[in-house]
């Protein structure tokens, strides 16, 4: 059985709407490009007529310069773009992101691994400006 959790969770002591704005700001300040956003709770409500707590998905891409380095490894597509989940938790907000780094045997190209590690680290540093890492497991 795998020992480590695949995701890291941060708690932001701000209500959801404010936390979404704060996250956009810190990501932009870290020169991380938002490739898109998805309002998950609205999609579920629209398609299934089920109400859920607000939840947004941010897609973050590596900078174009890093892209040039990705090479031709199809496994890298799983991480392009990277997902950041922003989810309401009462009057606060949780942010989830992928924690684990690519396994060496699967991302075969060294520059690819390096590019993703760098983006993951920059995302984590940006989120740590507005939230603190949760101690509650995943």
């Amino acid at each position, binding site marked *: 059985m795998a020992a480590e959790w695949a995701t890291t969770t941060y708690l932001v002591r701000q209500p959801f709407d404010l936390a979404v704005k704060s996250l956009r700001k810190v990501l932009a300040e870290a020169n991380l490009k938002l490739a898109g956003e998805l309002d998950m709770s609205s999609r579920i409500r629209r*398609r299934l007529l089920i109400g859920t707590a607000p939840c947004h998905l941010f897609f973050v891409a590596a900078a*174009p310069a890093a892209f040039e380095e990705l090479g031709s490894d*199809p496994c890298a597509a799983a991480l392009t773009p990277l997902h950041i989940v922003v989810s309401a938790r009462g009057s606060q907000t949780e942010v*989830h992101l992928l924690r684990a780094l690519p396994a060496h045997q699967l991302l075969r190209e060294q520059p690819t691994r390096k590019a993703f590690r760098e983006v993951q680290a920059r995302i984590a540093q940006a989120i740590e400006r507005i939230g603190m890492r949760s101690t509650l497991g995943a």
Partner: protein
Amino acid sequence: MNVLAAGQTYTVPERFDKAVKLIRSALAEAELTVAGEFDTTRAFGKDPGKKAEPSTVLLVDCPLLVFEAHVLDRAAGVFFPLHILVWADGDRTRVSTASSGGLFDVRLPSGVAGPMERLQTRVAMVLESVLSRAGPKHHQEGGEE
């Protein structure tokens, strides 16, 4: 590596633009949603010294499966939608599915594995149907499942 491994690579005997249309149409027929598309032309399938060919990542999911995964843990969104990489290879197009959950030997959030496995199965069926529509000259390369 856990059970949600990187998927198979398919070769569609159609040019890139037509193959993307075929895939989108087949996904819609299977009630799978393309939640987003991400141009990766400069990122994948490029050999040194060769001009970059078009490529794109389709972000594919199914609201019911997403809901099922989200009910137990919102962190499931880290793994949904599933990424389908489509890239031109001369007159052909290559298609590969990959889930970030399959790349690591780690514990996934509660409730992710089942819905993701079902989504991957449905996407694989869609891609098989695309191959049968595109003509007889196709092949599948071994995946890692």
